[in-house]
C-alpha cells in the first residue's frame, strides 16, 4: 500500500515533467500544425538558461592563495565571485544559492525570444510544406542547437543544485499516520509538481479566458475562416510559438536540480514527449496533460521490483506498450480530434 502511494507520488512528479513538455508540443502541433522535432532542444535550452545564469552569478576573479597549492604544486588560485564584492559574501551566496528559481525570470524572455525568432525565421516558411520537410528542418535545428550548447558547455552533465532550503525530503508517511521514513518525498520535486500545475493552469486560463486565447482557439479549429474575418492570425500564432517555447524552457529550468542538465537531454525527452502527445490525442491540450500524468504514473508503478520480478523487462517497455494499447482501442488517442494529422 505504502509502496503504491509512493509510486503514485513519483508518477505525478514524472508526469508533470511529461505533461509540461507535451503541452508545449501540442500547442505547436495544434495551433500551427508543425511537427517540431526541436521541441526537446527547447527544453534543453531552458535548462541551460539556468546553467548560464548560475555561471553569470558565479563569474569570478582569481585571488592567489599562497597557503594552498594546486595539483602541479603551484600556489592555488582561488576563485572569488564578483557578486561577493557587490553584495558581500552572505547575500552573494544566498543569490547564488537561489540561482535556479531566479533563472525563471531570466528564462522567460529568453525562451520567448528564441521561440519567436525560430517561428519568424524558420518555421513560418514550413507551414505549407509537407510534414516530412518539417521533421527534417526541425531535426537539423535540434542538432545545431545541441551542438552549440555542447561547444560551449561540454558534454558532461553540469550540477545545478536547488536552493539549500529545498534540499532533503518531506515525510508524508509521518504526516499521514504511517510509519516514518516510509513515504518520503524530496521538497524540490514537490515544488516541481506545484510549478507544473501552475504553468498548466496558466496556459489553460490564458486560452480560455482571454480574447487572445479565444482567437487562437478559433484559429486552431479553422484557420482560414478566422483569417477571412480580418484577424491577423499569423501574429498570434507567432506569440503562441513563443509561449510554447517558454513552457518547454521553464520545464527545463525547474528540471535542472532533479537531473544535472547535459546537451543531449532534449533528445532523451523528444521521443517520449511525442508519445505522450499522441497518446493524449493530437490537438488536445487536456489530452496531453492527462496522458503525461497517466504515463508517468504507469511508468512508476511498472518500476516496482515486484512488478519487474513478475514480468521481466516490463519497466523498459511500459510506456510504449501503453501507447500501443491506447492507440489501438482509441483511434485518436485519449482526447484527440478527428482529422488532425491523420494524413
Amino acid at each position, binding site marked *: 500500500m505504502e509502496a503504491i502511494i509512493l509510486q503514485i507520488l513519483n508518477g505525478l512528479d514524472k508526469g508533470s515533467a511529461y505533461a509540461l513538455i507535451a503541452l508545449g508540443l501540442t500547442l505547436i502541433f495544434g495551433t500551427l500544425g508543425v511537427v517540431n522535432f526541436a521541441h526537446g532542444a527547447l527544453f534543453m535550452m531552458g535548462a541551460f538558461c539556468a546553467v548560464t545564469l548560475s555561471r553569470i552569478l558565479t563569474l569570478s576573479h582569481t585571488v592567489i592563495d599562497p597557503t594552498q597549492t594546486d595539483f602541479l604544486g603551484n600556489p592555488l588560485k582561488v576563485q572569488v565571485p564578483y557578486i561577493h564584492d557587490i553584495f558581500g559574501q552572505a547575500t552573494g551566496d544566498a543569490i547564488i544559492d537561489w540561482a535556479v528559481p531566479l533563472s525563471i525570470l531570466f528564462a522567460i524572455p529568453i525562451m520567448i525570444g528564441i521561440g519567436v525568432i525560430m517561428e519568424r525565421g524558420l518555421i513560418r*516558411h514550413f507551414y505549407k510544406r509537407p510534414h516530412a520537410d518539417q521533421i*527534417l528542418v526541425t531535426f537539423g535545428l535540434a542538432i545545431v542547437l545541441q551542438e552549440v550548447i555542447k561547444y560551449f558547455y561540454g558534454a558532461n552533465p553540469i550540477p545545478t543544485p536547488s536552493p539549500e532550503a529545498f534540499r532533503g525530503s518531506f515525510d508524508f508517511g509521518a504526516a499521514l499516520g504511517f510509519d516514518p521514513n516510509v513515504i518520503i518525498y524530496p521538497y524540490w520535486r514537490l515544488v516541481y509538481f506545484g510549478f507544473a500545475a501552475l504553468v498548466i493552469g496558466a496556459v489553460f486560463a490564458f486560452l480560455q479566458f482571454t480574447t487572445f486565447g479565444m482567437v487562437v482557439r478559433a484559429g486552431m479549429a479553422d484557420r482560414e475562416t478566422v483569417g477571412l474575418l480580418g484577424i491577423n492570425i499569423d501574429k498570434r500564432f507567432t506569440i503562441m510559438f513563443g509561449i510554447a517555447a517558454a513552457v518547454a524552457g521553464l520545464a527545463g529550468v525547474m528540471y535542472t536540480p532533479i537531473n544535472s542538465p547535459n546537451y543531449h537531454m532534449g533528445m532523451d525527452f523528444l521521443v517520449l514527449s511525442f508519445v505522450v502527445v499522441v497518446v493524449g490525442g493530437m490537438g488536445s491540450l487536456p489530452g496531453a496533460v492527462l496522458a503525461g500524468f497517466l504515463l508517468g504514473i504507469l511508468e512508476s508503478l511498472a518500476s516496482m521490483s515486484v512488478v519487474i520480478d513478475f514480468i521481466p523487462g516490463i519497466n523498459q517497455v511500459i510506456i510504449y506498450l501503453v501507447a500501443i494499447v491506447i492507440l489501438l482501442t482509441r*483511434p485518436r488517442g485519449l482526447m484527440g480530434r478527428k482529422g488532425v494529422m491523420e494524413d
Partner: protein
Amino acid sequence: MFALDKKDARLLLMVAVLTMLAPFILNPFPAGSEMAQFNAGYPDLMQRFVIFGIFAIGFNILFGLTGYLSFGHAAFLGVGSYSAVWMFKLLSMNVLPAIALSVVVAGLFSVVIGFISLRRSGIYFSILTLAFAQMSFALAYSVLTPITGGETGLQLALDDPRILDVAASATGNIPVPGLFGLEMRASTNLELGPWVFTFNVGYYFSALIMLAAFYLAIRIFRSPFGMMLRAIKSNQQRLNYTGLNARPYTLAAFVISGMYAGLAGGLMAAMDPLAGAERMFWTASGEVVLMTILGGAGTLIGPVLGAGFIKYMENIISKINESILHQWFYWLPDGLEDFVVAMIYPFIGKGWHLTLGLLFMAVVIFLPGGLVEGGQRIGRMFGRKKSEEKDKPSGKTTPAE
C-alpha cells in the same frame, strides 16, 4: 531492357555503372595527397553506402509511395542482423543462408508489426511503429541478452556449433563470412601512379544485391501495384469509396520494405559479423527517414543519394582532426593559420554533427525536393534541352508527404 521503359533502363544503367566504378569514383584523389582525407573508396564505407542504400530504397517503397511514415524501420534491420549472425553461429559462414534467413525473419516481423500499426494512419501510425521499435531495442539491450548479446552485441565465438562449417579456421581463428569460400573481406588493390583503388569482394557482392533491389524497386514503382500505393497516398478516402480496401496494399508495401530492411541488416552482418542493439534505437530509424527525405522522398535514386550523403559525413568529416587542419593550412602565415583552423575546427571532427545539422537545414530550405532536386537544378543549368533528360531519369518527383 529488363522490361523497363527507356528512361528507367537508362537510370538503372547509370546506377549500375556508378556502383561498379565506385572504387574509382570515390577515390578521386591520389593516396597521400592533401585531399586524400576525402577519399571514400575503402571497402567498409563503400559497403555501407550500398547497404544503407538498400535500406533507404526499401523505406522509400513504403514512405515515398504510400506516404505512411514509419519511425521504426530500424527494428527490421536489427532483427535481420541478429538472424544472420545466428545463422553464422549455428549453420555455416556462407552468407547466402544467413541473408535468406534475415529477409524471412524481418518479413515475418514486419507482417506482425505492420498488421497492428496499419490499423491507424498519419502520426498515429508513426508512433505505433516507433513504439514497437523502441520496445525491440529496450528488450534486446537488456532482458534478451542471452539471445542478442545485449550491450556487447551478438558475436561469433570459437565454440559455436556451425554444423555445416568449421568452428575455427586453420589458424585457430573464427572463420570469416564468405560465399562458397570466397571471403567477403578479400580485396585487391590496383595502383595507377599515385592512385590506389581497392576492389573488395564484399562490396561487389552488396552492390550486385543493391542493383537487384533497385531494379525491383523500379518495377514496383511502375507496376499497377505501385499505382495503387500512390493512390492511397493521394487520397485514401476516395479509394475506400470506390470499394477498394487499401489495407492489403499498404501491408504488402510495409512487408516489402521490412524485407528490404532485413536484407540490409543481413548484408551488414555478412560484411561484419556482429549485431548490436543500437541498430534498432529510434535514432537509427530516424536516420533512414532523414536519408530518404534528404535525398528526395518518392524518387527512385534520392534515398540512395541521401544514404550516401549521411554516411559520408559520418565517416569522413568525423575523422578530420585539428592536426590535419594545421597540415592543410600550414602554408598560411602563422596567425592566419590559427585563425582559419579555429574557424573551421568546430565543424569537423567531433563537431561533425553540427555540420550535418546545418546541411539538413540548408538542403530542406533551399532544395525542397531533396538532393535529387539539386541534381535537377544543376542539370537545368546546362540548358533547357538537357534538363528535360535529367529530370526524368531521376524518377517522377512526387511531392513528399
